[in-house]
């Protein structure tokens, strides 16, 4: 797996303070603390405040989590309630054939 020195740069796109956005942020924090403690940063981007930022990362669905670093870029959409899928999506757990 990734070396411990790796820096994880994560962005969470939301639109306003919706329940879904709140759930997504809480779920993300929990996962990061468990698996990436001390080597991650989360930037929350509210498209209601910064609508122009949606184009750059090709944001369509909300909430969307974008892993900017390490590359390659990964995207996970939804409220991140399924921890298993989030870990697979972030390459923190190998993809299983049955998943």
């Amino acid at each position, binding site marked *: 797996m990734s070396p411990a020195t790796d820096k994880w740069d994560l962005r969470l*796109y939301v*639109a306003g303070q919706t329940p*879904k956005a709140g*759930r*997504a942020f809480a*779920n993300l924090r929990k996962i990061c603390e468990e698996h990436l403690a001390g080597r991650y940063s989360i930037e929350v981007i509210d*498209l*209601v405040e910064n*609508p*122009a930022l*949606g*184009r750059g990362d*090709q*944001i*369509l*669905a*909300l*909430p*969307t989590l974008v892993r900017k670093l390490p590359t390659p*870029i*990964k*995207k*996970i*959409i*939804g*409220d*991140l*309630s*399924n921890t298993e*899928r*989030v870990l*697979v*999506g972030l390459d923190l757990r190998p993809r299983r054939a049955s998943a």
Partner: protein
Amino acid sequence: MSVKKKSVPSYRSIDKACTGIQGLDDITHGGLPAGRPTLVSGGPGSGKTLLGVSFLVEGAQRYHEPGVLLTFEENAEELAADVRSLGYDLDKLVAEGKLLIDYVHVDRSEIEETGEYDLEGLFVRLDHAIKQVGARRVMLDTIETLFGGLKDTGILRAELRRLFRWLRDKKMTTIVTAERGEQLFTRQGLEEYITDAVISLDHRVHDQISTRRIRVVKYRGSTHGTNEYPFLIDRDGITVLPVTSLLLEHEAPSSRISSGLPELDGMLGGQGFYRASTVLMSGTAGTGKTTLSAHFVNAACARGEKCLYFLFEESPQQMIRNMASAGIDLKRWVDKGLLVFHADRPSRHGLETHLVEMHHAVEINDPDVVVMDPVTNLMAVGTTADVRSMLTRVIDYLKTRGITAMFTSLTTPTQSLEHTEAMISSLMDTWILVAIESIDRQRTRNLYVLKSRGMPHSDEVRPFRFTSKGITLLPPASTSAAAPARAKRKSRGKAGRKSGSRS
């Protein structure tokens, strides 16, 4: 709402937004429903995207309605190149802030889905784009692509329904393109959500000849033309041809136009043809039909009138060379811009497309005189009934515009003249026949006027000769003053064996 140059029927019911696409505003009686979405469906390559882009570009350029193009297709560069070939410069409109293009890219392999989500990001982007340019028009091309990018179709359907409602609330005149499904107008049944207007495009191949057609399937709150109409995509954009609305109500001017030959004018009541009338010039190969047309065109250009000459057999260069050798200099008129040739192989496309192209050429050149040489070549493309119906439409159109038209018709020696031309001769106001007759081992060309509506005309059979200055009609010879019917029979027998020397 903007003003349309041509007649928009007064029974317009709801607010409409002109597409600016020639003909489409006619069959929709004024344009698309303003402030509402319209579904444009069709197979691959049917012209959906070009129609939508035309709608945006025309809106931005002519109707002061800026637009947003949200494209879900992957080939973004191709889009710009495609529309550039139509003479649209999207980059310029973008730079002027009249158009905004946002490429939405969705790749299922890049995206993991976990838990609840919505498409608010799409809404935010679209809303932002609309505000940036002050858009009144939106195009979504092709939003169904999302079904390939997102797994949860339940969410997707609910969000699309919300999107179309949202666009309606924003009063955006929207075109939503979609690929035609097997049973439905769209693969994902978008017609369930977009109920205001549905337009269907089609690209059909019949006898190896393709024709594009457009049909307004549905238009809530408005009357519309229900037929399938042919349309054309060329360097001037999209042209739709509403072909069936023409009525027999064109003007019938009493002014006259010379045939280019004083002797022939003499046979036509002394003054030549009526303006805005139709002339059929028929005969077997090598009888001089084209040369007679060239005289007609030459005289018109000499008066400063504009001529459009459709060639279905020869190239313009060949025609100019041949006529120069016959003593008629057409090149000077081409150089002066008074004579325009439009050469096309009949087999290159279907009759409908020919019809659209002819309309188009007439629109652009605005001629006083039109020649089609030989119109009979078009018969190779369609059935007799089709050709007749097409010619009816061409003639109606030309008459409405006050254009005098000459059609040459090549008759084959083996076919009966009456049979070959019965179908088109009734559309003609004047019918001139040229034939080769052999007397005493010498071939003589004869010309006679079979009919000419609304004027006294000569019953004479006039022999004619090619001179260094074109054709000269001779006085009626006593030996060849036979009845036309006999002359015809004879000429056919002889011309069959000996082919003509000049056409």
